[in-house]
């Protein structure tokens, strides 16, 4: 991302994966999520429009199917650096003309880089959509920058790394844990990149990355708000339609070999005042799952970690009274294999080892006894209700659809989400739990405080 708004708390992150999807309880036979309209330009640019007339404002989001997992070997952080360099201007709109224009229009903008995609967005009054569309389309192929701009921006990216990761012991450990879970697959490399490789990046590396990935047939345009597909189509044709497709094929990535031994990383630091622990497992995503496993994992995650009435919170925080926090996380939105994880953090005076033992006991109990029909129904009902709230903010639709399409799903998959979650049974959940929660496929990460002498 180009600029931080705030540091995401670890536990806040996990909920987000779920706030997608669905329709209101019992509303229609064919439940739908966001009712988007979709069309594709001749050059392959996919366009999705979500109409909401509540206010005269629109959001344009352009998602490229290229993220940190597409960084060239030895050039970690390249997708993210390439994102930063997209704000340096073009011949037609030099330097910060784009940003100044958005600001002057009373709009907001930003960009973000993830493992599987890079996205750019602006929110403006609907009458200004064409202005930002023209500029966004222009920079797809025409971004330019000087050596000096590049050198300065690399320093900015290094400061971003220090701020996000190196200043924060738990972020440092997460980086290590992640590299341990994905030992061979590029998901093991941090999105922001390793410091030495950020320092070694060159302007030509960025240009090559843009050249390879930034093309209409490798992008998805989402327009959400006070506008219809009929209104968007001519604008998109005019501004994006003339850009040559690259003929890019589906991305090919290294695959992670099967894990045959559990792994463990521990970090002790005098900077740590609150210890914590996580246990995570490689898990299928929507795209890599053979069938409905990703949906079953979402239900499992809701049962185990969905708030204060979930199993893990109830066991560790309330009944045993040993943890300050406990729960689980899972995000199905991933091109390749993702992770399912558990976390816990002790109350003052409790050892982190006791939290680990309690988490493992709960995992064992789950594998031995399974989940009940009632738990599954409760979880499904909560997921369904959350999906109603997800419709309240039209940006959520843009985000959910963009993420889905950029990580290998279709718009139809997003719309079918409520139906697919509703079909999951207790047997499905038990089966996927036993498939995924295998000790040899796990990585345990422990963060401990080291007493200052």
């Amino acid at each position, binding site marked *: 991302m180009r600029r931080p708004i705030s540091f995401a708390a670890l536990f806040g992150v996990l909920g987000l994966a779920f706030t997608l999807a669905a329709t209101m309880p019992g509303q229609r036979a064919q439940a739908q999520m966001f009712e988007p309209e979709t069309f594709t330009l001749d050059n392959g640019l996919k366009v999705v429009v979500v109409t*909401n007339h509540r206010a005269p404002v629109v959001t344009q989001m352009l998602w490229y199917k290229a993220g940190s997992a597409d960084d060239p070997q030895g050039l970690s952080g390249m997708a993210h650096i390439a994102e930063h360099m997209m704000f340096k201007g073009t011949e037609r709109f030099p330097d910060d003309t784009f940003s100044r224009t958005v600001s002057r229009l009373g709009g907001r903008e930003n960009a973000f880089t993830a493992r599987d995609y890079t996205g750019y967005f602006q929110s403006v009054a609907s009458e200004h959509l064409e202005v930002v569309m023209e500029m966004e389309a222009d920079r797809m192929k025409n971004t330019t920058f000087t050596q000096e701009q590049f050198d300065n921006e690399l320093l900015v990216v290094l400061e971003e790394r220090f701020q996000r990761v190196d200043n924060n012991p738990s972020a440092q450990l997460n980086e290590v844990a992640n590299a341990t879970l994905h030992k061979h697959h590029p998901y093991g490399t941090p999105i922001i990149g390793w410091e030495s490789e950020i320092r070694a990046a060159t302007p030509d590396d960025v240009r090559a990355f843009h050249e390879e990935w930034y093309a209409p047939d490798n992008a998805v345009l989402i327009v959400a708000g006070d506008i219809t597909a009929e209104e968007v189509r001519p604008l998109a044709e005019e501004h994006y339609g003339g850009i040559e497709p690259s003929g890019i094929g589906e991305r090919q990535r290294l695959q992670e070999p099967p894990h045959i031994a559990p792994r463990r990383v521990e970090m002790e630091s005098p900077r740590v005042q609150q210890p914590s622990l996580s246990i995570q497992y490689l898990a299928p995503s929507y795209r890599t799952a053979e069938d409905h496993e990703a949906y079953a994992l979402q239900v499992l995650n809701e049962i185990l970690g969905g708030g204060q009435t979930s199993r893990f919170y109830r066991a560790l925080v309330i009944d045993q009274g040993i943890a300050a926090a406990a729960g689980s996380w899972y995000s199905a939105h991933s091109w390749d294999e993702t992770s399912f994880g558990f976390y816990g953090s002790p109350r*003052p005076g409790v050892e982190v080892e006791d939290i680990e033992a309690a988490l493992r006991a709960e995992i064992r109990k789950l594998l031995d006894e399974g989940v009940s029909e009632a738990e599954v129904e409760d979880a499904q009902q909560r997921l369904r209700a959350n999906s109603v709230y997800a419709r309240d*903010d039209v940006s959520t639709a843009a985000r959910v659809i963009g993420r889905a399409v950029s990580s290998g799903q279709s718009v139809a998959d997003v719309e079918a989400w409520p139906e697919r979650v509703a079909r999951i049974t207790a047997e499905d959940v038990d089966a996927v739990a036993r498939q995924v929660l295998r000790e040899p496929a796990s990585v345990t990460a422990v963060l401990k405080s080291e007493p200052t002498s």
Partner: protein
Amino acid sequence: MALRSYLTMAGAVLALAVPLALGAAGPARALDVQRVVSEQGIEAWLVEDHANPIISMNLAFRGGAALDPEGKAGVANLASALLDQGAGDLDSQEFQEALAQNAIKMSFSARQDSFGASMQTLRENRDLAAELFALALTEPRFDEGAVERRKSQILAGIAQRAERPQTIASQAFARLLFPDHPYGRPTEGTRETVPEITAEDLRDFVGTRFSRDNLVIGVSGAIEPEELKPLLDQAFGALPEAPARSVDVADAQPQAAGETVVIERNVPQSWVVFGQEGVRRDDPDYYAVSVVNHILGGGSFASRLYKHVREDRGLVYSVYTYLDPREHTALFSGGFGTSNAQVGEAMTVVRDEWRRLAEEGPSEEEVEDAKSYLIGSFALQLSSTGNIASVLRAIQFHDLGIDHLERRSELIESVSHEDAKRLAAELLNADSLRIVAVGQAEGLEPTRPAPEEGI
């Protein structure tokens, strides 16, 4: 997990950045705000929105953590963590199950000057939601187990945040400016004060602070005024008319003008916060100062500090300023993070820009750009019923008037280039900046020793 945070950050931005309400340039299309008064005389402001079967409510009681008793900092915050942990006949888990099973979201939060609550429910569950809200506000149980659990969670959170240079810096900054005023204490309390708080303190808090006449309520979503009225009585009818104790806090003058404190921490990047006196929310110059803030370091990629500290020199990833008007003081503050060796250089650039804007003033174009941003971007805040309810609460809390959404654009539009120049000259004082740096900051001379441990 670290990786996911990138997505979440994006989420955080997006949440701010979306549709609803007022046009940008051009004439403002104001929200239709209705004043609804229940049979028992409880007032709420409502913006109807029937697009989805959702109702959002956001409210605040005047008076917050600044009223916590001496030695018991954190009472309001602990209360906010306990109101949904058992009330009436329901114990903690029963209350949480009632919320979860009916998809009712409820949260409470303590700030220095107010105690806030928000609630979101599906339309079909609104009666139950109001009932649970009333129970939480008037009959919280404060069971021993729940109190101990919440205290331990707050202490764990305090420990976790104490690892972060940002938290250390902002808490030290507050103490430096307000050594003898409650604004100098953290809202959540400290490791020393939180264990001292008793269930009796919490009951006293609820019994003396919540009342109808220090309450403001914003509502948005799928509900009509006639439906809202009985809900208001159900949720708030049991509250006393007036608070049992005064909620007055003394005004505070920021201290330590021109002082610099350096707190040593073993991190590669220092975090620096700085600030001076600002203007209150009800000051007639508030909007002119907002324009000045936007130009200097406010919320866009076009600010002077963004350009000179980040774009031209690559010294930081984040640099920003913001207005921090409180009920009893006002600050104009900012912050940045930079590698230890560059702290002195970055602070010099900040100071120089601070001084240059005071001496030379902004250009006419900068003022016009800032105004059009401040007018147009407001609509983007109103992205959901929850955000609209929150804006309605804030307008009432600051006594801005029910026509504020219509007048806001005019108030900003009326700021002239001369006004902005005058305010920049009168207000900005680079020599008065108080600075706190946390890290192994180089090139910054402390004028005072670092505070003792225990931040």
